[in-house]
């Protein structure tokens, strides 16, 4: 398989910089206009000051007082995204968009070098939209995604099949999809820092420690990933979660944490699924003793209050310290006629 992962460079900020050349050289962030606005994207100038995406607005301003904070203009980004997608489709029908600014392309069927295709795509995007993109070229999706980050911004990087083994050996574990800071920390505690370190654990051992996820990790840390590029993949749900360094112990703490999660989630929905119909909202809790619970309800347009209620209902079941909170929505099925007609049990 030859996969290209194409990732626009600080997409929203880049679009704004193109629209407002007068601001192009200033530190600039695009973010939610709400009371607790977070930075959705920022340009490289802002990153020099330590501003990062998903950072609360007040903190970003603290780090960079002269930061220009612009409201998000999704319609504009969506229009650019459509243009970019059309460019991608000139090369292969197998384009799987991940969000407005990211996509996988399967170019296995082309007899050209994937490297040249990626280069040409990036040039076309730049010529036609004035925006820069980075690309990763690899034998599978996971590696392509890691590679696109390697020469960012405005660069590309390839991992050929014979380089995979050497590349994975020294790759920090954190680069693997699904390994968050908490898991990375846990592994580091056992002296496991890189994928190479993890490769020393046998499959049965990993499975004993992590269950099914262990089986996946076993392959991922060897650079193996057999997921296909799926052009028509329909997202069934969208969620966000956070593991806390210190357990949440009071309802008030949980509510505050939930507020952050919900604003992230609603921003995500705006970004990558604004056109989808929402069917349900759900809240997920992992308690300090690792037991889990979820609570969901039918809410076509969930807001913070919806999630707060679900959270309290779920928390009441155990009222135990919490180590992880998650919030998400399930989208209505595309086969609307049937789904609308069939009634659901009211759990």
């Amino acid at each position, binding site marked *: 398989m030859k996969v290209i992962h194409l990732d626009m460079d600080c997409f929203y900020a880049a679009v704004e910089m193109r629209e407002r050349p007068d601001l192009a050289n200033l530190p600039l962030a695009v973010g939610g206009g709400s009371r607790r606005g977070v930075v959705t994207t920022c340009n490289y100038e802002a990153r020099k000051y330590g501003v990062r995406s998903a950072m609360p607005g007040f903190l970003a301003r603290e780090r960079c007082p002269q930061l220009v904070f612009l409201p998000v203009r999704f319609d504009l980004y969506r229009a650019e995204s459509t243009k970019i997608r059309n460019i991608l489709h000139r090369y292969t029908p197998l384009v799987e968009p991940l969000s407005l600014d990211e996509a996988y392309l399967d170019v296995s069927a082309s007899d050209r070098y994937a490297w040249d295709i990626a280069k040409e795509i990036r040039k076309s995007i730049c010529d036609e939209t004035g925006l820069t993109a980075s690309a990763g070229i690899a034998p599978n999706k996971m590696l392509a995604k890691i590679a696109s980050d390697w020469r960012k911004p405005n660069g590309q990087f390839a991992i050929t099949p014979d380089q995979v083994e050497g590349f994975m050996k020294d790759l920090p574990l954190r680069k693997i999809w699904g390994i968050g800071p908490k898991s990375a920390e846990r592994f580091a505690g056992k002296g496991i820092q890189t994928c190479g370190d993890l490769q020393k654990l046998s*499959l*049965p051992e990993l*499975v*004993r420690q992590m*269950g*099914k996820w262990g*089986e996946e990790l*076993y*392959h991922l840390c060897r650079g193996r990933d057999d997921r296909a590029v799926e052009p028509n993949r329909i997202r*069934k*749900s969208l969620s966000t979660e956070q593991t806390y360094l210190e357990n949440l112990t009071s309802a008030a703490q949980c509510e505050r944490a939930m507020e952050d999660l919900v604003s992230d989630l609603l921003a995500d929905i705006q970004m990558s699924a604004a056109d989808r119909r929402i069917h349900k909202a759900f809240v997920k809790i992992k308690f300090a003793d690792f037991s*889990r*619970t*979820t609570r969901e309800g039918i809410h076509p347009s969930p807001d913070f209050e919806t999630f707060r209620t679900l959270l309290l209902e779920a928390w009441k*079941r155990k009222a135990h310290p919490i180590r992880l909170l998650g919030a998400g929505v*399930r989208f209505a099925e595309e*086969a609307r*006629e*049937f789904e*609308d*007609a*069939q*009634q*659901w*049990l*009211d*759990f």
Partner: protein
Amino acid sequence: MKIAVTKEALLEGLQRIQNVVSNRATLPVLTNALLETTDTGLQLTTTDLEVGIRCTIPAKVQKPGSTTLPARRLAAIVRELPSSEITIEVDGENIATIRCGASFFKIYGLPKTEFPEFPIAGEQTAITLKQSELKDGLRKTSYAISSDETRYVLNGILFSLADNKMTLVATDGRRLALFDTDVEFPKSHERDFILPTKAVTELQRLLGEEGEVTISTSENFAFFELSGTFLSSKLVEGNYPNYRQVVPGEAKERIALERDAFLNCVRRVSLLSSDKTSSVRLNFTRDNLDITANTPEVGEAKESLTIKYRGKDLSIAFNPEFLMDPFRNLANEEVYLELIDEMSPGVLKINTPFLYVIMPMRVSV
């Protein structure tokens, strides 16, 4: 290791365990069966890391030992062997020589050390019931299991052990099947757990009409012991939804339906239910039930059944598959349908502890 075994015993043992082996060889040893000699015979084990099965068959042990051999290939060979007397000899390199009459096979195995450990049962929480009873309960509920992986807690059957009762529940969010049976056990054994679909399927295959089954659990596993066979399964993590809250209260109408007649009518009518909405409509009038379906630009179907019905006229639509599922899996001649109105869930009952809640469809035709 060297053993002599009959074809019949070995084949039966392999058939009990071989379904579990994974076809996709993520870990090559998982396509193998673990063979270990015991004092009285040969112990066979397979696992896919979620579900494991172990059984022992009678064999003459000439030299104790162990190895792992490709399970399906071994079963295929044994099935074709010409006579009953089989000897299997394994050398230090895990190469097995199988001899039977004039037949000779050499197959390559993998060492036992690569095979995952079989989880250990938690003895103290064991409950015992008749195999036939558990088999009956699984049959009456398992068709309602959800296959939607985004709702993973529904990808299995809830076993709820409380108040000297074992309750089994399965649901996919649109219908729910519930079975319960009396089992005696101390308060300390009370617990809820969710057995994943694959284990349910295997268990249904292993359960017979005779004998007993012992169920025990540890924190993350359930264990079933039946007629010398052990099945272990990881449990589905998470909380099962509160199924009691979706069982409707008192019904307005209780209609007795003759199982075969009703099932046949729905099956025929459903041939003309549309692919998009897939519904059949039940129209109840005095002592009569009309079952209808139609698809625009294709056609329509209607069946009439004579029933006892004295309530007010009522019309309600269901997905025909959801309606037929319990009828296909119940042995009773008479099934009772309880209804409130056309928007409320319907309930199917029989004269033993079983319940099936089915949500209607909101369709105009």
